[in-house]
């Protein structure tokens, strides 16, 4: 990708970020990565009633090389995990991942030997979408949230700094089991 190598510095970078984010969010190409029940809802989202074309992303790409969004739609088995990772690696940067449905997000009700307990063990996830399966409206909401995230994404030195901050925050974060108080 040529953009990353030709970045300006200073305040112009922020303007470039905004322009690049706007362009990127307006033409996201999802890869067809349907696994289970959620894939059917993903296809429904692309079909007539919910019409994903309104957000410029009804064209699901068959080849991961032409896609920049992977919607992991369904339960990821131990056998599928290496395949999923390979597909992710084949996608060009910048790329995003939506973990659609509770199985992909945390293993869900299938807490057993066969299912990977959360696709974030394999690939970094940008949006976790709950539901079993999530309604098409929920998927669209997740996609719009991802659009916001893409719009605000950083480039160049800013991106490095943002990554560092995120890393620091993650290191300081309290593990779930040590949290106290109400369950919310």
């Amino acid at each position, binding site marked *: 990708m040529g953009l990353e190598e030709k970045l300006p510095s200073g305040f112009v970078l922020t303007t470039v970020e905004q322009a690049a984010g706007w362009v990127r969010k307006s033409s996201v190409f999802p890869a067809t990565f349907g696994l289970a029940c959620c894939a059917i809802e993903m296809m429904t989202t692309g079909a007539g009633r919910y019409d994903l074309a309104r957000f410029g992303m009804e064209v699901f790409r068959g080849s991961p090389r032409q896609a920049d969004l992977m919607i992991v739609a369904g339960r990821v088995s*131990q*056998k599928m995990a290496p395949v999923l990772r390979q597909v992710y690696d084949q996608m060009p940067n910048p790329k995003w991942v939506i973990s659609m449905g509770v199985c992909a997000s945390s*293993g869900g009700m299938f*807490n*057993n*030997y*066969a299912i990977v*307990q959360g696709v974030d063990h394999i690939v970094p996830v940008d949006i976790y979408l709950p539901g079993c399966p999530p309604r098409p409206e929920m998927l669209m909401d997740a996609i719009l949230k991802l659009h916001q995230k893409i719009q605000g994404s950083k480039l160049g030195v800013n991106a490095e700094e943002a990554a560092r901050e995120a890393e620091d925050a993650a290191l300081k974060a309290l593990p*779930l*089991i*040590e*949290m*106290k*108080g*109400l*369950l*919310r």
Partner: protein
Amino acid sequence: MSDQESGAGAVPAPRDEHGEVIGVRKGMFGADNGGDTSGYGGLIRTVTLPGATSRPYGGWFDEVADELEGALEEQGLLPGNAIEKTVVDRDELTFHIAREHLTTVARTLRDDPALRFELCTGVSGVHFPGDKGRELHAVYHLRSITHGRLIRLEVSAPDDDRHIPSLVAVYPTNDWHERETYDFFGLIFDGHPALTRIMMPDDWQGFPQRKDYPLGGIAIEYKGAQIPAPDQRRSYS
């Protein structure tokens, strides 16, 4: 509880007592490490599967049994040797077959014009760790489209010699079904053209649906709390 029992009757009574004991459960809530403080430690429950039925079996069951025995005798096979026992339970006819005669019996059931069980709906493995010498069962359901009948064949193998003859030569549909049962229970079907894993990755260790294989879940963490995996929780034995 008087207002609750106005229904059509209580839970069906346990079946006849002469069944086949396949295991004994003790205590409750899965407490088996000696530290049982539940108060249920003395509870003992034998697990009894329906036992052998004597004739008449009723309906078309007798006809099928007669035809099968006759056809086996014609081939010089003593029916008593091939059919270990016959069970009629819940309107279903089950033949327990000695494993060395399984192929002959299946071929007879398929080819004999009076039997004609053309369709095999695959094999289902069941693991009874408490049933010593017959731990692994393979259950076949055969359907006759000609006569509109359904019967069940049950074959068992001890855990230290898990071999059962393959039925792929008789029912090619059993190809994947036998691979699946091998994959999940470790039953080796002798004569299968390519008995390899089908569901699990090729390098998987163990046979996941056996009773001695753990479910393999992880404990679920919440804010400040943890719930053990489903197979680690307390259970009503």
